[in-house]
């Protein structure tokens, strides 16, 4: 049943009257008051997540030199960028590494600095060394430049991430290798010595909107401390995975593509990340407000960690070989309590996603909305939901 519209919610936000709670707080509210009352009383539920998101990067347009250069290859702090665009446009991917990095030659490599770190440094206001080379044309004669840029001196710096905020993710284990393995899910000890997960569970944006009823193209979000938008469904978006009776996906499913102005973001919410033996990436803070338009929606946002399940996947043999096999299902309450049972063994858990930071993001977004500084947008198009 419909209870309110975007316009009504925004009107209340503008007046400073909106009732905004986090995705943790709504759980108790629904338990106490029931779905009907909660849907009437609450206007917005805020979510959050803070985790490494490898499919991310930034478009940067730097001020051209005099004489001008049609930059063909460009490095920022020694990190290669993609320059196959107009003269002074580049795309800096977060997993890019310096050309001279030892990579995994001394195994496991430690990958101290890469694209994600350049973005963190840029947002922190640091000076970044730019080197560009070209072949020279009549309109762009310069063949090489070396200069220094920073976030203020560039014309644009636009965080543009083709895939973020995965709706649920695997729990990773090492079942078959007799040594530590080094994966994007962290270090996994032999004999299922640990199990690593990466989701904010009950706080995670897409787990609170399992059928993408409110999160769609054009949704305004908290991105890297500033503001951003969902611009498309993310790459690998897959709404067709199996779901629980509550509609919640039981394996990695939906994703979103997001964009926002780096100039308004903060290094606290964009962190260069070094994953031993694997590479570099960027850890990103994302928060998405969910408008309580109906009773269904409030019910979805009240989802609890114990009702969100995911699959245990082996990263020593199955995952690398594309074998799709589960070693059991666990929920996020068990994961966050510190131990899960796999094949009769108590296995300690660790996470790559920070629940503490996810909680902070949901709180910040809540404050911004309550103060009237953040209004909600109605998506111009929905993500495919498979419904």
């Amino acid at each position, binding site marked *: 049943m419909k209870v309110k519209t975007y316009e009504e919610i925004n009107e209340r936000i503008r007046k400073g009257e909106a009732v905004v709670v986090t995705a943790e707080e709504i759980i108790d509210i629904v338990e106490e008051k029931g779905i009907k009352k909660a849907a009437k009383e609450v206007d917005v539920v805020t979510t959050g997540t803070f985790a490494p998101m490898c499919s991310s990067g930034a478009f940067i347009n730097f001020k051209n030199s005099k004489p001008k250069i049609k930059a063909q290859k460009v490095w920022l702090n020694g990190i290669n960028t993609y320059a196959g665009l107009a003269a002074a446009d580049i795309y800096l991917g977060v997993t890019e590494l310096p050309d001279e990095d030892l990579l995994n030659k001394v195994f496991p490599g430690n990958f101290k600095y890469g694209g994600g770190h350049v973005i963190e440094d840029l947002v922190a206001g640091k000076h970044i060394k730019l080197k560009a080379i070209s072949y020279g044309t009549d309109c762009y004669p310069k063949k090489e430049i070396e200069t220094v840029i920073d976030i203020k001196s560039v014309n644009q710096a636009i965080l543009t991430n083709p895939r973020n905020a995965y709706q649920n993710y695997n729990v990773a284990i090492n079942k078959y290798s007799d040594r530590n393995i080094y994966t994007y899910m962290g270090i996994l000890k032999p004999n299922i010595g640990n199990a690593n997960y990466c989701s904010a569970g009950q706080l995670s944006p897409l787990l609170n909107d399992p059928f993408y009823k409110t999160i769609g193209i054009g949704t305004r979000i908290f991105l890297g401390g500033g503001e951003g938008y969902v611009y498309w469904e993310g790459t690998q978006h897959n709404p067709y995975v199996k779901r629980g009776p509550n509609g919640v996906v039981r394996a990695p499913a939906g994703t979103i593509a997001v964009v926002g102005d780096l100039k308004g973001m903060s290094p606290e919410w964009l962190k260069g990340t070094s994953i031993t033996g694997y590479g570099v990436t960027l850890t990103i803070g994302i928060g998405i407000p969910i408008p309580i338009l109906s009773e269904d929606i409030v019910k979805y946002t009240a989802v609890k960690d114990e009702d969100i399940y995911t699959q245990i996947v082996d990263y020593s043999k199955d995952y690398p070989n594309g074998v799709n096999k589960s070693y059991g299902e666990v929920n996020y309450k068990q994961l966050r309590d510190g131990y899960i049972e796999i094949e009769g063994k108590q296995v300690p858990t660790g996470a790559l*996603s920070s629940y*503490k930071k996810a909680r902070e993001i949901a709180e910040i977004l809540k404050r911004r909305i309550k103060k009237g500084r953040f209004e909600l947008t109605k998506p111009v198009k929905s993500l495919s939901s498979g419904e």
Partner: protein
Amino acid sequence: MIKKRVVLTFPHEIVSQPVVYHLVKDYNLMINILRARVTPQEQGRLVVEISGRKKELETGMNYLAELNIDIQPLAQDIKWHESKCVHCTACIPHCPTNAIFLNRDTMKVSFDKQKCIACELCIPACPYQAIEIVI
């Protein structure tokens, strides 16, 4: 009663001798082995916490010195940079002593230096270079 954390380096001819046994039996010392790496043909390294009476600890140390065992205070120090920590918990399953630990209500990670045995297992597990070894 005093306590000392030391790194013992054994020449390889000593590796096969029950040195720790003698420290316990003859000198009445309590030995807590924090780390051990003894490989045949090579020298051995033992990181131990020794506690006992002052006098016995001294004579115990003399016994080790006579065996040509090198004794160094445990100078390695693990530093956890709170400002760099994002409280992800990736390090938690790697710490054998709970020196780095998680409060599951606040989901905040903290570090208890007293419990740390400088095994360094947490260092590669941290994606944010928040843990560092200071030598």
